[in-house]
């Protein structure tokens, strides 16, 4: 029993370390949408053509989203002058939950409200959180599903790459 378990555990560990990646390359135009935002007016994705957009789907009840937010804010402050923005789409059914979260974890980038999940469906969101990197031409380039500490380094690399294009 012990030997079998040892063998299988070691195999799983080795195989998983060999194969785990966390960003998928994407193709195709990012679907356009318009949502209410916390900036006082509605925001439309097409209006950001020419800028690099980091589209992030998050919820107030999602632990990893909580970890990610302050790190995203750092990236936003660093690169927003170079033609980059973050659009954080909140999926809470009750927007009051999102606002309460933002009071505890304030961010400087725009937050959009997708309380009926239409845009989440449009983007086939299958993990919380989900981040889609969109280039200056409005094409989807990278997908991140979930968040684990260390992902923010990949975000920075991809943002720098897309800004330079």
């Amino acid at each position: 029993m012990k030997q079998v378990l040892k063998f299988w555990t070691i195999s799983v560990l080795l195989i998983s370390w060999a194969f785990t990646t966390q960003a998928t390359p994407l193709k195709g135009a990012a679907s356009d949408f318009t949502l209410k935002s916390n900036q006082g007016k509605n925001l439309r994705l097409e209006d950001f053509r020419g800028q690099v957009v980091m589209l992030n789907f998050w919820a107030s009840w999602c632990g990893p989203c909580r970890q990610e937010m302050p790190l995203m804010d750092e990236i936003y402050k660093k690169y927003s002058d170079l033609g980059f923005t973050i659009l954080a789409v909140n999926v809470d059914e009750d927007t009051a939950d999102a606002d309460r979260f933002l009071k505890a974890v304030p961010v400087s980038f725009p937050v959009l409200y997708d309380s009926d999940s239409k845009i989440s469906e449009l983007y086939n969101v299958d993990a919380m959180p989900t981040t889609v990197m969109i280039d200056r031409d409005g094409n989807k380039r990278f997908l991140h599903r979930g968040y684990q500490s260390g992902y923010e380094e990949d975000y920075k690399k991809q943002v720098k790459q897309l800004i330079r294009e």
Partner: protein
Amino acid sequence: MALGVVVAVIKFTSQAFFKTIFKLLITVNFLTHSFNSLAGTLPVDTVDSLYHRYEGGGMTIDGPFILVRKSVGNQFSLSGHYYVDSVSAASVDVLATASAYTEERTEVSAGVDYLNEKTLMSFKYTNSEENDFTANSAFFSVSQDFFGDLTNFTLGYARGWDDVGQLGKSETEDADRHIYQVGMTQVLTKNALIGVNLETITDEGFLQNPYRQVRFIDPGNTARGYSYQLESYPETRTSTAMAFRGLYYLPYRASIKGEYRYFNDSWGIESHTYDLLYVHPLDDQWIVEGKFRYYSQTQADFYQDLFPFKDSQTHLARDKELSNFSGTTFGAGISYELGQGAITHIDRLKFTLLLDYIQFEYDNFRDVVAGEGLAVGTEPLYEFDAWVTRASITLEY
């Protein structure tokens, strides 16, 4: 399909079977690896401290229970706990054959959780010490999330080693244990969750209490009409428990949970447990809850309150825990929570107070202390109630 798994598992709980299931689970997990797979989350970092107190049936048992958990990197979480039972007892068993005593039991554990993709593997080692009893156990489990995180499948295996001593004797007896667990949880809707658990335990060795005694009719004992002799249990015991639970979210923000557990074992004991829990948040910080539990069991084959004469059976037990009895619990609780932002670096701070009132009623265990002076076998049936208090402070950081 999931039901097929559960049915198959229920029919065939044997050691070889579990070995294979573990092998299968880990193999299938590694075979279905894909590039860019999703991962689950580790248990949250926490410091959970509890003051627990049990008062009833002539016994008062209280003490601390502290658990600390810290994640290391993205994949590992370390945890450890410290628990003490301080016993001061003058229960009906004790008063019948001995005098009041105090005792202390200390339990510690150390564990590690490893998260890989959607699989969480856990290992924990526990040690428990009293002045005449030592117990050690090692526990391993694999928990797998799949089908878009709607289904969770968990397998657990534990080994236990007990050292049963007796004050005044230098030698100890052994008892060993194997525990096999299977569990499945399924998200049904945005508001509902169901779960099923199966657990088989096999014990082997010295399973009785070295101090506890049974009574038998003894005309030679003119004072009471009965005499005592030490209990004698079988050297093996196999038990199976199967539980179903359902959790439902009510639209005004409240939850209701129902549970049923069926149990039986090789000693002839059969029991049913019913649990109902209602949780009601008053606002963002205050949550109240109420619970009801009903437990009933039938006796062990070799149990009797009063045996006809000395050594009338190979196995003899008069432990009320093995008798025909039922227990009813009414519980209430209140908690106050401070969320993220209230205190820097603290994600959540929760204060909880829970109070349970339990009433035990025995159908064939008699109170010989209350029945002193009465004819043998006509003493009143025993019953007692107990208050269980739990006051805890939980910190997530």
